[in-house]
């Protein structure tokens, strides 16, 4: 090993004062790079929703009556399902990070928990944008034909992005709460089941009466309804506002919880 040169010495610490925003951007770049290099996890995240769509369209679709062609009904649902599943992977990446030594280094460098977690969340939104496009593409191939104006497309994209953002923060909080990546992974299953008792795959009216209350009032339903309405050019009533309110609420609560959990985990 070469001798350490003197210039390493005691120059006053660091360059300019950084902002939390620039830290968050650096953290996002880090998380994007890390997830690009975890190909197996990335591929699972991309393939699973497609498999599920093919399953519903071709295997179940023939038996399901929704008033329209089933593919038209189910693709918006699959987009939300895929976004929910994708969001849940944040729990795993956050839990993995908490297990390594790098969090202590970040903290000793005065980088706040919100910046670290925001990196995971934003990277996950980017991952989901990719998988959404892929699912939409395969949707077209199997016969999905939306009737949406440019504005409606924009609205749909916005709602979906908001949904991913909200559930990624929620997952991040779960990831901090979980003791290990394995435990955090279990949360993915929970989020995978949440769409079933909603209008994601079949209309709520076809379900037994006792579940209507839950199905109509859980966050997935307004998101799916708004998305479906926007993409198919149907009236959506207040569903978009419900969806936005749910997402904003979940985001807010999760960010607060994340801050507290990060401090607790690292104290």
């Amino acid at each position, binding site marked *: *090993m*070469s*001798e*350490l*040169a*003197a*210039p*390493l*010495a*005691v*120059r*006053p*610490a*660091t*360059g*300019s*004062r*950084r902002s939390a925003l*620039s*830290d968050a951007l*650096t953290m996002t*770049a*880090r998380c994007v*790079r*890390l997830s690009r*290099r*975890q190909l197996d996890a990335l591929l699972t995240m991309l393939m699973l929703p497609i498999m599920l769509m093919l399953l519903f369209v071709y295997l179940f679709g023939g038996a399901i009556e929704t008033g329209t062609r089933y593919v038209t009904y189910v693709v918006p649902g699959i987009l939300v399902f895929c976004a929910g599943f994708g969001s849940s992977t944040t729990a795993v990446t956050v839990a993995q990070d908490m297990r*390594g*030594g*790098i969090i*202590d*280094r*970040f*903290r*000793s*460098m*005065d*980088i706040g928990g919100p910046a670290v977690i925001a990196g995971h969340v934003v990277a996950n939104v980017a991952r989901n944008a990719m998988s959404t496009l892929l699912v939409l593409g395969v949707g077209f191939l199997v016969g999905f034909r939306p009737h949406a104006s440019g504005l409606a497309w924009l609205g749909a994209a916005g709602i979906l992005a908001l949904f991913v953002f909200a559930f990624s923060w929620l997952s991040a909080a779960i990831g901090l709460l979980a003791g290990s990546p394995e435990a955090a992974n279990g949360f993915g299953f929970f989020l995978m089941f949440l769409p079933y008792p909603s209008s994601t795959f079949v209309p709520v009216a076809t379900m037994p009466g006792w579940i209507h209350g839950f199905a109509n009032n859980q966050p997935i339903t307004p998101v799916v309804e708004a998305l479906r309405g926007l993409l198919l050019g149907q009236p959506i009533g207040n569903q978009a506002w419900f969806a936005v309110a749910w997402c904003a609420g979940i985001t807010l609560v999760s960010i607060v919880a994340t801050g507290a959990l990060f401090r607790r985990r*690292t*104290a």
Partner: protein
Amino acid sequence: MDDELAVEAIGLHKSYGKVSVLAGVDLRVARGSVFSLLGPNGAGKTTTVKILSTLVSADAGRARVAGFDVARDRHRVRRAISLTGQHAAVDELQTGEENLRMMGRLCGLSGAQARGKATALLDEFDLADAARRRVATYSGGMRRRLDLAAGLVGNPSVIFLDEPTTGLDPRSRQGMWQVVTGLAASGVTVFLTTQYLDEADQLADRIAVMDGGRLVAEGTSSELKTRFAGQRLDLTLIDDGAYREVAGRLGGRVAHSEPGRLLIGLPTDGTAAHVRALLDEVDPERRTVERFTVHTATLDDVFLALTGHEATAGRTAADTEKETANV
């Protein structure tokens, strides 16, 4: 408090639940020195480092690092220090260069500055050839060097190294020792913990021995050895009869005896005059002492004397501190 001190701690206490980890720790580390906290696993070394590097708050007591209070001025402390813990704090899926550039950005460097700093550090730490390889492909020693380099991106003035060589092969340890020596020469303060006696002996200007959450001694390596385990003249006698005769004659003055090896140890100050006088006294006929060894106390002896148990690990090449001669 004293501005010449890089680290000053008074009465640090920390418990986790009912388990007391630190029971009143005082520390003073001069600027620009290498300070070693030496102790077995579970002595409280890591907790001390975590408190001093602001990751954990003490239940009682206070500490200043680089002139700032670790509780009230934690943000300024963080900008003046770096911590390299026991678990590698680099991303395995990023290359060495990417890790260092990321740290540079987080330290407030511009993209170009971060790139320049990364290149310089990779050169200095002999990692230039591996700069574009993912850390997952690095050896343990390379990883530790990168880890240390990552801690230096922000030009810290106090560097905490928590067991920097645990788990490294002997050659990588030597490499780390050179790095630490180089750091010290460049004027930064190095605060390192170790469970290896020879490591503290080699690197540290001052050593604090820690056991059960307390400091049991503090001083330079030679001070500790003189104070807690003096030197000894070990004599190997020619036969059993001579052994019994000498042992009987000297009685209570014998500091150490090993009948099986016909060995008797007597306290000495190590000077030639004293050794010569002892030899003449024990063996005026110059016939019964076959050989002698001046046993310079090792930190092992210090540790044993202080804690009543041997250090758990790491007695390596330090046992060469013996001078042997035939009579």
